[in-house]
């Protein structure tokens, strides 16, 4: 399918061309193309093992592609580690959230990038400033917590998700990648997390949302892209597609969507 490029002269914010990834004899990704516009919320769907997480880990620097290139604002980039991706403003919120439960909210937000003063080659953390920065940042995102000193393990699933998002956006993020943010949440918290994604978009941040829940995708996304067995399968603007069609894509089918709308297993 040639649905991959749809821009008007200016290069996309983030683009990936011909990305392949092999783990030994297994091909996780096969010449995948990908692009993300400024301020766009892109839904990435696909069955388990379709390669969604692998692609995101490549875009966020945790994995290196076996072939292909990543282009950020028209310039080819190479991410050797998540640190390199952070530098250009790409942040990932992991499925397991990757928070240290034994530490406070504010410390988790700035973990690895603590504000402080360098003395004798060591970074002395300014906890007071860190605490204040965290409180202000949470305020901006309309995230309410009792205190930034609370340990993350004492928070609910939705609050943890919010802290993970706050962490991802603490340093001028341009792109936030979210892997199944609502999978482990109580129903009443799902809405809050999705609204948070919308508010990121309002702040000009592009969001990539990996989700199995089409409700989520259709609620927040501008465009949806489907991977199937490690390759591009289909993509469309949200207004040009339907839920049933997307379900078909996830199962690797195009066209006869009504027949697949029910729980039919191939």
């Amino acid at each position, binding site marked *: 399918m040639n649905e991959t490029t749809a821009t008007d002269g200016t290069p996309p914010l983030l683009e990936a061309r011909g990305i392949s990834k092999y783990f030994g004899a297994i091909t996780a990704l096969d010449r995948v193309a990908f692009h993300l516009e400024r301020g766009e919320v892109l839904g990435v769907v696909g069955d388990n093992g379709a390669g969604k997480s692998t692609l995101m880990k490549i875009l966020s620097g945790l994995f290196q592609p076996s072939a292909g290139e990543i282009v950020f604002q028209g310039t080819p980039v190479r991410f050797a*580690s998540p640190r390199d991706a952070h530098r250009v403003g790409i942040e990932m919120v992991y499925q*397991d959230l*990757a*928070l*240290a439960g*034994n530490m406070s909210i504010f410390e988790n937000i700035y*973990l*690895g990038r*603590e504000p402080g003063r360098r003395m004798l080659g060591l970074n002395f953390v300014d906890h007071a400033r860190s605490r204040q920065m965290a409180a202000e940042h949470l305020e901006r995102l309309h995230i309410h917590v009792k205190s930034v000193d609370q340990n993350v393990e004492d928070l609910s*699933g939705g609050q943890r998700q919010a802290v993970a998002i706050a962490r991802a956006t603490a340093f001028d993020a341009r792109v936030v990648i979210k892997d199944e943010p609502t999978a482990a949440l109580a129903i009443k918290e799902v809405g809050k997390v999705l609204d948070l994604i919308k508010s990121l978009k309002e702040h000009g941040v592009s969001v990539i949302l990996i989700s199995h829940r089409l409700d989520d995708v259709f609620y927040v996304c501008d465009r949806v892209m489907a991977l199937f067995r490690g390759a591009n399968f289909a993509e469309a603007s949200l207004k040009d597609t339907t839920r049933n069609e997307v379900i078909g894509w996830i199962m690797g089918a195009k066209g006869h969507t009504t027949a697949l709308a029910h729980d039919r297993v191939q």
Partner: protein
Amino acid sequence: MAAEPKVAARVNIGRIAERYGIFFVVIVMMVFLTIMQPEYFLSVQNLTNVLKQIAMNSLLAIGMFLVILTAGIDLSVGSILALAMMAVAMADKAGWPWEIVILIGPAVGIAVGALNGYGLTLLRLPHPFIMTLGTLNAIRGLTNLISDGRPISGLSAPVRFLGSAQIPVPSLGPFGAIPISGFVLLVCYGGVALFLRKVSVGRHIYAVGGNPQAARVSGINVDRILLLVYVLSGFFSGLSALLLAGRTDSGFPNAGIGAELDAIAAVIIGGASFFGGRGTVLGVFSGVLIMGLLRNGLNLMNVSVFWQQFLIGIIIILAVYVDVLRRRAAVRTEELTHARPGQNLLRRARGLGSRSTTT
């Protein structure tokens, strides 16, 4: 709204109890011993004695604490102590200048600690237990090889200084004196406390223990943190070797056999989690003091050494059980407050925190 201050107050009491509860146990023990043995326990001589006796274990324990914070274990500290002690004694006997000799102890510790750290991170051995069990034996063997299994006694005065010298304090009575080793402890504990609290690398040690995956994706070099804690543990073992050599005026190859278990016991009694990420320097110090006071108190009361061992065992179990109860209570409150997936609760009840990895 009106209920809010109450909640805050309760949380604070909980926090204070968590942070200082174990130190409170130390104070209770001291009061008890003062009442039981009024003329002996509080005597300057006895207290100085306690301080000298706990010096070795407290240095091993502070290093062990850093390792346990990362959910690791260092079984080799007793062997490092022996090797460093023999190296110090032999170098002193060989007539090396004392400025060099006193550096040998910590240097040997740092070297073996680095070996532990690299073994763990480069060889990717499945658990630090394995690597340090290896060095526990190998380093003890090496100590016997270089010393031929024979102790050495009679060290020069400057080498003995840290372990045996005292600053006389006449205001404390005719025997009033503060051992230099007390100051060494103070500096080490204060330094580690500051490092863990204020320096970002210190915070990263807690992060690695809490969730190594979170640390990794935050750009923290987890392997470097692990290397650091084993090097520091080695350093403190080497330093305690220097103090012990000074106190006993000798070096003996059997020094520190089983010392790793005492150090682990002190850290655990002090409330640090065996699964990493939890514990305080004050807690470790309390753990060391509880063990030291118990031994001292039972000695003063003429109770058999066998009872000391028995009681320390019971205290270890009790200390961890209290921690289990506390955590279970915390989980239960949470369960009432939020509807959360049961799997997470189970994981936390086991004290494992969130340490799953992405697939």
